């Protein structure tokens, strides 16, 4: 049996009142990729990711993640880890409490991994999460999302609050860990340079519509063919072309 696609969307749409956050989105992401979701602010990236983890249900179309309906039950929830934008944590709970939360609420919780991450980051488990810096908070939230050992890890702007050096380390650690555990990853950013480093599959979302989706190498090859050989284009230039074209 071939593994189910990571994400399959058919004419997916999401509307908040009159505002369309996502329109006619059709995607088919094969397993085994680190997927980058790029687009300007307000393009619908967060909406797509929230639909994928099941925090909310679409107003039209259908979505299936790892072959199941997002958020449909404890098993589906266990298979998908989600790190929301701004990396929310409980300010009054300590880091150790967050680990305990992860352990109590997840059958597949990997306590060794979580403790090791806390040690690597040189964090005091007794510290209240409200006292952490933005970057440390993001690390803690990521540790929670990854510690439940999901098959798919969805990260919404995970590096937005990190400085450039921390970004590099975070993404490196993420891709290594994903490769090691065979975890699929979808992460969003409005910075293409972040995604270029980590992703091998790209989705470009502009004003609620998907403009481009596919493996990075194939996108690049197709583009270079069209533009004529000899002029190596960067992924950043390519995506910018799409973003401008959509205006």
């Amino acid at each position, binding site marked *: 049996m071939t593994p189910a696609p990571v994400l399959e969307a058919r004419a997916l749409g999401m509307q908040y009142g009159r505002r369309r956050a996502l329109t006619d989105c059709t995607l088919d992401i094969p397993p085994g990729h680190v997927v980058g979701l790029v687009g300007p602010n307000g393009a619908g990236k967060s909406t797509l990711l929230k639909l994928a983890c099941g925090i909310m249900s679409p107003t039209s179309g259908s979505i299936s993640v790892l072959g199941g309906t997002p958020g449909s039950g404890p098993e589906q929830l266990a298979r*998908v880890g989600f790190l*929301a934008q701004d990396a929310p944590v*409980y300010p009054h709970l300590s880091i150790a409490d967050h680990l305990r939360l992860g352990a109590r609420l997840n059958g597949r919780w990997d306590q060794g991994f979580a403790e090791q991450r806390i040690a690597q980051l040189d964090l005091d488990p007794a510290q209240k999460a409200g006292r952490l810096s933005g970057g440390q908070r993001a690390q803690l939230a990521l540790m929670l*999302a990854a510690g*439940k050992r999901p098959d798919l890890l969805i990260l919404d702007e995970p590096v937005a609050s990190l400085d450039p050096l921390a970004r590099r380390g975070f993404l490196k650690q993420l891709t290594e860990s994903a490769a090691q555990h065979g975890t699929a990853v979808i992460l969003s950013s409005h910075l293409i340079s972040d995604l270029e480093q980590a992703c091998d599959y790209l989705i470009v979302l502009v004003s609620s519509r998907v403009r481009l989706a596919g493996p990075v190498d194939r996108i690049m090859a197709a583009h270079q063919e069209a533009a004529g050989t000899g002029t190596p284009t960067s992924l950043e230039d390519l995506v910018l072309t799409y973003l401008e074209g959509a205006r």
Partner: protein
Amino acid sequence: MIWLTWRQFRAQALVAAVILAAAAAYLLVTGNQLRHAYAADLASCVPQNSCFGVLNGLQTDYSGPRQLLEYLVLGAPALAGIFWGAPLIAGELERGTHHLVWNQSVTRTRWLAAKLAGVALAAVATAGLLSLLLTWWAGPLDAASGNRWGTQAFNARDVTPLGYAAFAFTLGVALGLLVRRTVPAMAATLAIFIVVQILVTAAVRPHLMPATTDAVAINQSTMASQAQRADSSDAPTGPVTIDLAGQAGAWVLSESPVLGGAGRPVPSSEVATCWNRTFGQGPSRQGQGKGDSMGYGSLGACLAPLDLHVDITYQPAARYWPLQWIETALYAVLGALLAAACFWRIRRFRG
């Protein structure tokens, strides 16, 4: 989930426990003093037949603390709704932590079930304990006053506070989920809870069970034993009102003016002769105050041949417990409906 519910509720539970412990200590100490004073007063007043005044004095002495404690018992459910209910979901939504906790391997239905059940239990238990303590504490005062139907007496004794707590808490949770912001949800919880309390107390409670109506004939014996006030209008066609005390322990809802044979209100001209004989001529055409010294008995004797009566609508004393339970159940059902609405809403939540 039980662990997380407890971990997040721990601080509030501690505050409640401290308040509860302080209230319990105060109630136990002063309650014993009150009991001793009551027993001593009874022992001294019964032989002298002066219990009315002595027990009135006891009630006056303790009316300050009694009112304060009643406010505490009445306020506890509201506080549970405001400080435990409203932030339960709204706080998560404000901090964005619902994104964290709803993406663990526990469905949000189960998350809500654990939180609702756990904290509701604490709210109901707190209100119940406070009510139990006050009901015990105020026992002698309630026995002396014989008033179990007053708003504060009925609302702050026995089982009704349990229903109020369940309702106020789920109201807070539901409003938090609806409004998504803690402070406005707190304010709305308080406002709606107060409105519901007033509505139920004033407009619903009297009709929870069909009231009994008795026609009390006006004669010497009823007037001598039950009359509290007699008033006849100055205008010849104006009404005549005689306030009669209801049965012991009954909750009198309404009394008609003095009625004649066909249930028609008797105009003051028809009773003028008797009235003048009792109260004299001139502007003083009414009697006030209890006791036969006012001449109610002779007024009754004079009025008896006219075959008059007063309709008293009331809830008999024996309905106290049925009404306590019915009202508690009513609030519990409202709370359950709100909880069901929360489950329905949280599954369709967006954001």
